[in-house]
């Protein structure tokens, strides 16, 4: 399962620059809104599902080398956050659904 297929199946909006998403294969995922928990729990190359949309999520994802952040419930990061994400090469995706449902769909797709 590559990121392009995930974006299509979950109808995610890509907030940052286009990348060859079909070459990115998320290995696993992590869901939390507390950044220190993410620091502990998220694995390199994994997806992170969160409600947080402020600029500090970018630093966390960059440090942990996550494959993408899925921001849930349509929360909209500001322009500066998106710009920072582009600079750091972090992919931001947006879903209208809540974290519970996004994680459920990812699990169904085999991201475990």
């Amino acid at each position: 399962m590559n990121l392009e297929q995930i974006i299509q199946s979950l109808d995610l909006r890509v907030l940052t620059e286009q990348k060859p998403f079909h070459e990115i294969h998320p290995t696993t995922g992590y869901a939390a809104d507390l950044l220190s928990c993410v620091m502990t729990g998220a694995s390199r190359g994994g997806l992170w599902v969160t409600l947080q949309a402020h600029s500090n999520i970018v630093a966390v994802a960059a440090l942990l080398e996550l494959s993408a952040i899925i921001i849930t419930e349509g929360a909209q990061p500001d322009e500066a956050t998106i710009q920072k994400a582009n600079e750091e090469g972090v992919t931001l995706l947006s879903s209208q659904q809540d974290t519970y449902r996004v994680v459920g769909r990812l699990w169904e797709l085999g991201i475990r």
Partner: protein
Amino acid sequence: MPEQTPLQKSSLISDQEAENITRVEELAYEIKVQEVMTPNPITMTTSMKMQEVLEQFRVARISGAPIVEEGKLIGIISIEDLIRCLIKSDLESEIQNYMTRNPFTVKGDDPVVEALKVFVSTKVGRLPVVNKEGQLIGILTKGDITRGLLKALQQDYQTEEVRRYRASHLFEDIESERTSLILRYNIKAGDFTHGGEASSKIKRALSRMGASPQIARRCGIATYEAEMNLIIHTTEGGVIRVEIEPHQISIDVYDSGPGIQDVELAMKPGYSTASEKVRELGFGAGMGLVNISRCVDIMKLESVWGKGTRLRMKIFLKKEDTVGEGHAAKS
């Protein structure tokens, strides 16, 4: 970038578009025509016969040539002109009957993008290159531009490789009893906008120096938590000081207040003094110091309430994974 590039002259490019400009486009503005052109091209004169054009094209394997009279460019002859001539079996005719007069030209110190514009808006296959005095100095084809851009892109790539190589061998040629590199970062209190930047830079520096991904990651997480603590909790910010030695990384984070009232309690997982506002941003899980202790080999936290806090950490590197001594980082 020089001041006069068309990119900056035009106010039509929005910030969004500017962000999307690729390295190739940037290079088209940076590289000058004379850097990619073929210098000293074969030239011909008006009175030469088309038969000679055919011979020259065949021998030199070229498909066009500028026509020069007394040092001045007056026209251009191309393989298309030669074909027209061949159809009429008119090889005894002089060049001036078939050449294109007053051809489009481009200046040597123009950026490549200017030449690209001419290629796009006209159908010409080659452009004579002239200097400020109008004298011919070279010839430019689309192939020359492609080759030049590819070469420049390759150089970009090599620059990063060289930088990595140099940094990963930093300590090798320096002799001392104890060699180290010290990085210092001043962190401002309340500066959430730049939160995580210092730790990102530290992590990048370590990777360049040849640290393994695991070491770079552990160091990144530890310094990130310490950096956020300075931003969230201090009154006047603080300093992160990282000392890199081949076999160990020593991180020292200190501030001038307010200090921690109960260090033992602060170390307890889940304990946090963060404000409601900070918690809404996802901080204040009470896991910062716990995360740090997981990532480092030695951690020492000292604090005097009202004075300040000093957090010292050490990460030891295995003999085969030292930094700056030529061990390439395996990703």
